[in-house]
């Protein structure tokens, strides 16, 4: 399902054309429209609540991209990705709070961007550490080691040790004004939104290009059959670990980004539920496509918000509903995953691909 058929009459004369991202004028137009929507329409017409929903979507996309890389492209099932988000968030927070930044760096707002990069690298390396068992085990056993990563990192190391640094108790609160990118202090939903858009576009671009490089082809080969990949001369362990590194790297960026939206960072923001949620997102979106991560994030966040909106009016007559909304959300999420797996196992991205092909090949779709 990876190739989208082009309409009749599109010819390529150079390799550059053949490899171009946007191959027809129609696609270019679509992308320009998307850019206008993202940079021109949403930020100026959405209110604060809608922007915060968008930010939530962006955060979910950033988290899900790493999971998509591991599960969808490299075949390494992970149920502990929230651990790497947590490592990113905590690295960034600690760097901002504890590192003796020179005054001019704070002045120019370099501290936060540098801490994001550092957080991404630390999270990547941490991810490689827990990817090491993948050299020997796979399938269900690998799932268990990634689960172990979640419990060891978040519930043990971060809760018991990292949280004690500086004697702040369980949560690290960031004083206002410390999260500063260049001249802008990130203090409103709008500014978080712009940062989110830049990060999401950056990560999607990097990942999409990585996937059509040598490394990307190696990952897909490992996913499809790791024994034959090894027979073909691919260094399986190296590329598996590279996949873990890149996934952790993106996860670290996601975590470090999300602290700009949180008043205080605490281990409760990165529960095991969140790891499973991210896997659910890519399954609903579609495994093995970047579209899948994006559609899944939009769908899941939007559905949950709609569910909340639907429950609100009922809450006057049934106060129990509002109190227990979290549980309804959990049950709905579970049921949604089951239903998608049973009735729509290819995910939303598959329908998108079908629709594109339908219009590209219309009227003779054979």
């Amino acid at each position, binding site marked *: 399902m990876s190739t989208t058929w082009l309409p009749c009459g599109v010819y390529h004369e150079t390799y550059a054309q053949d490899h171009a991202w946007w191959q027809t004028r129609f696609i270019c137009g679509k992308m320009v429209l998307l850019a206008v929507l993202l940079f021109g329409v949403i930020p100026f017409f959405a209110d604060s609540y809608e922007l915060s929903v968008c930010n939530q979507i962006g955060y979910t996309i950033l988290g899900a991209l790493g999971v998509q890389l591991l599960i969808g492209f490299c075949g390494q099932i992970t149920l502990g990705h929230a651990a790497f988000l947590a490592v990113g968030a905590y690295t960034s927070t600690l760097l901002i709070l504890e590192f003796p930044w020179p005054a001019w760096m704070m002045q120019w707002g370099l501290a936060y961007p540098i801490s994001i990069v550092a957080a991404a690298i630390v999270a990547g390396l941490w991810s490689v550490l827990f990817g090491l068992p993948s050299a020997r085990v796979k399938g269900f056993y690998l799932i268990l080691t990634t689960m172990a990563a979640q419990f060891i990192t978040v519930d043990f190391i971060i809760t018991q040790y990292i949280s004690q640094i500086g004697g702040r108790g369980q949560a690290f609160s960031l004083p206002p004004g410390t999260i500063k990118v260049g001249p802008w202090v990130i203090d409103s939903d709008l500014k978080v939104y712009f940062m989110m858009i830049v990060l999401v576009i950056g990560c999607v671009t990097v990942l999409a290009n990585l996937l059509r490089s040598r490394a990307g082809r190696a990952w897909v080969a490992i996913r499809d059959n790791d024994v034959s990949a090894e027979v073909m001369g691919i260094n399986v362990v190296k590329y598996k670990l590279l996949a873990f590194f890149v996934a952790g790297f993106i996860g670290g960026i996601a975590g470090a980004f999300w602290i700009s939206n949180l008043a205080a960072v605490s281990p409760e923001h990165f529960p095991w539920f969140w790891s499973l949620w991210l896997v659910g997102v890519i399954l609903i979106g579609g495994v093995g496509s970047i579209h899948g991560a994006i559609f899944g994030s939009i769908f899941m966040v939007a559905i949950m918000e709609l569910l909340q909106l639907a429950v609100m009016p009922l809450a006057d007559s049934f106060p129990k509903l509002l109190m227990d909304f979290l549980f309804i959300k959990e*049950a709905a999420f579970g049921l949604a995953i089951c239903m998608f797996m049973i009735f729509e196992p290819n995910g939303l991205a598959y329908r998108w691909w079908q629709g594109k092909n339908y219009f590209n090949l219309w009227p003779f779709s054979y």
Partner: protein
Amino acid sequence: MELFLMTLTTGIMVGGIYALVALGWVLIYKCSGVLNLAMGEMTLIGAYVSLSFYSMGVPFLLALAISLIIGFVLGILTERIFLDKLIGEPVLTVIMVTVGLSFFFKGTVEFIWGTDTRVFTPPVFSIEPIHIGPLIVGQVYLWSFVAAIVLLIVFVCFFKYTRWGLAMQATADDEMAALSVGVSARYVYAAAWAIAFMAAGVGGTLLGNINGLNISVSYLGLLVLPAVVLGGLNSVPGAIVGGIIIGVLQNLCGTYLDRYFPGAVKEIAPFAFMAIFLLFKPYGLWGWERIERV
């Protein structure tokens, strides 16, 4: 020394409960190849059902029996509605369906019974400890262990000597061959889920008697995973031994390591142990080694 022995006995007794739940898990895996992550929530349902009936004044054994019956029905329903349609799908799909089921069950349980800790009132087992030689053992632990062992024996006999049990063994061994001699694989799958649900319910009820019942009892479902991995995924004796080992390990770590790593060492130790164990013995103690060919 006395402390060590005490910890060891407690570990073995709690381990008996883990073994019971692990048995249910292995049963599903052996018969239908489903890696079930909803085990913890299955224990919750069984435990809450028996607690509800018990607090209504139904005698404990009867309440347990009712929860077994409800577990049986729910197990068959779960298999029929969700898992039956997934035969032959990729591993990840099936696992995520069980994850989805676990969220669904958990959300439902929380919605119906809330998140406060509940205890069996009046206590089912007397609080008076029993002295066995130098050891002092809580009655709850002792009776839970006895109940778990009795049930384990019942289940093992069921597999060995009844027609249904033999059909399940045959399916686990070679599905195609079992089909060809007239075993209905669909009934076997449903039976496996029903038995697992029942075992989980008993495990949850016993554990709820020890610590009180709240949502964290579903952690039992996660603890089962190190146990089955330790024993090898498709080995029934492995599950029992693994469950007991994990119980002992957990209690030993809680007693001796808590000083050095304060906090949640008791919860983390099984997983850390499992991650290291897997590096050296990827197929567990008695699991089947798969030789892969292109």
